[in-house]
């Protein structure tokens, strides 16, 4: 596969916390592997493309989160996501996006059904978690760093696995785990953006999306940046 399609879902709504950079890092890393990445921005009124390889959702404020959910439940969108998952596409959802793809969450005091793509439910706590976060994940051979800014407490159901084990920070609200994963569906509370801080994670997502194994990338600046953040947090 020499081309991939990266679908940035509702960046106008889910772009408040810088997560749009995840798409750019994926496209940038893809180039090293000789893959041409096409970033498609989907707005509130658009239908999701049926042939995306990686679907991205970012963090948002409550009203924007509810609008994004409403748009994804409209028409054929949810079905498109289910079919994408079946053919092995990757989903990376951050913070509000992570809550949206779960079973249930609360926004603006309203409890709503999420998309049900990850077996998690999220409820707001009484304290906001703001600060650097570091985790380690059994899926990856390195530590992940990022920044969290949320009030969510996320509880995992039986078919979701925790994505990361928290070293510093609060993650899912219990200060033990961050995010959830099921196959190629990843949810996390980490901004940064997470793929800018952890470019090797972008490589893993590219491998999962294309089903190919790539040679390791040599990008000294990316490595220096990631290593430095892992050291200081």
């Amino acid at each position, binding site marked *: 596969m020499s081309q991939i399609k990266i679908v940035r879902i509702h960046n106008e709504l889910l772009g408040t916390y810088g997560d749009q950079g995840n798409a750019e890092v994926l496209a940038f890393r893809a180039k090293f592997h000789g893959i041409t990445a096409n970033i498609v921005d989907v707005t509130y009124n658009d239908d999701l493309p049926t042939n995306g390889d990686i679907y991205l959702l970012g963090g948002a*404020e409550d009203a924007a989160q509810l609008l994004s959910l409403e748009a994804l439940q409209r028409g054929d969108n949810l079905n498109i996501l289910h079919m994408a998952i079946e053919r092995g596409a990757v989903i990376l959802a951050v913070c509000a996006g992570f809550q949206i793809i779960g079973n249930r969450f609360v926004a603006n005091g309203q409890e709503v059904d999420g998309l049900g793509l990850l077996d998690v439910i999220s409820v707001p706590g009484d304290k906001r978690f703001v600060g650097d976060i570091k985790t380690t994940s059994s899926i990856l051979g390195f530590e992940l760093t990022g920044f969290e800014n949320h009030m969510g407490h996320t509880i995992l159901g039986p078919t979701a696995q925790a994505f990361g084990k928290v070293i510093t920070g609060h993650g899912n609200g219990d200060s033990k785990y961050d995010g959830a994963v099921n196959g190629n569906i990843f949810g996390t509370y980490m901004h940064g953006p997470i793929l800018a801080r952890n470019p090797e994670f972008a490589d893993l997502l590219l491998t999962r999306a294309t089903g190919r194994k790539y040679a390791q990338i040599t990008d000294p600046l990316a490595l220096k940046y990631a290593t430095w953040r892992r050291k200081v947090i």
Partner: protein
Amino acid sequence: MRLKIAVLIAKFAALLSKRILRRSGETISGRVLLALYPRAIAELSKSKKIICVSGTNGKTSTTKALVSIISSISKLGTVATSPSGSNLERGVAAALMQKSDFAVLEVDELHLSRVIEEAKPKVVLLLNLTRDQLHRMHEVKRVADRWAKSASAAPGTLFVGDVDDPFVAVALNSAAQSKRISFGGRKHQDGAVCPSCGKYLKWVRNNYKCPCGLTNSNPDEIFEAGSAAFRNATMANVVGKYLGAKLIAVDEKSLERSVDQIHAGVKVNIRLTKNPASWTEALKSVAGDNAVLIVNAREVDGIDTSWLWDISFSGLSGKRVVVCGERALDIAYRLHVEGIEAEITSSFKDAISKFESGASVQVLAAYTAFHELMNS
């Protein structure tokens, strides 16, 4: 304790701070005053006409412009203000200790409610509201909600603002008295959701109109489009005119928060860049081939740097770009992914040393870096 004695003690504390610690003494006097006399802002405001200026970007320069506009109508010839841009309650309290008939106060977005409640200003000027320091503000909407709430609770205050910004428009709609200014409409990075009703906000080119009624299409005054500096100067003049002052010529350069300096023979123009909106504005005007970018992440800079990814730096492509500051690596990697290779240096001095004497360099500086350079 009586107010007069509290003021005397606060002034004495400022004097000590200036003499012994060689500081400005401004915040210490405000802190001492509020500790001794918690209602000082309310009491000191009674004898003055108060004008508050708030917004994400442009507070300090607009406040300065308003001070010069209003000094022409001040009977005492002085307008109380905070020269250093200290904009929390302590800075406001310190400014109000000055003898004057007018006070122009720059107020932090999150602290505006309390200052309005106590100082009962005659006019509040709201410039703009965009994402900034989200580790502290948490959400843009949260700040907007506070503004709207305090506007509705201040029937005696005139709220002036730029309704091309939907967050400002909501606050103005909540006020009993308002003057809605438009510059012909402008896209807003955080404007996808109606801040009034929470629905998807409908934009047609640069203008928005929500079924709930929120719109920029019915302003009280409309001006031509211009830079952020132009808009702020224009609104300062609207406030001045309302108070009976003569208008000033709009000097965009002086309103840009940009300063010319010479470092090691290199001519630098330094601009304050602290969030996506101010970076985007500043990047439009980078002339020449050389740029130094300074990124820090201390409390007032915002301790998270994720927002660097909300900015397109493509305008720097082809220029020589040198980065420094505590988060030089964050900006260097962000630029790298956009195809711009910056030279990473460990200090501003090192960054400047990369250029030959006589060269002209545009410096874009984080809040803390900007203030350090101003005081150097």
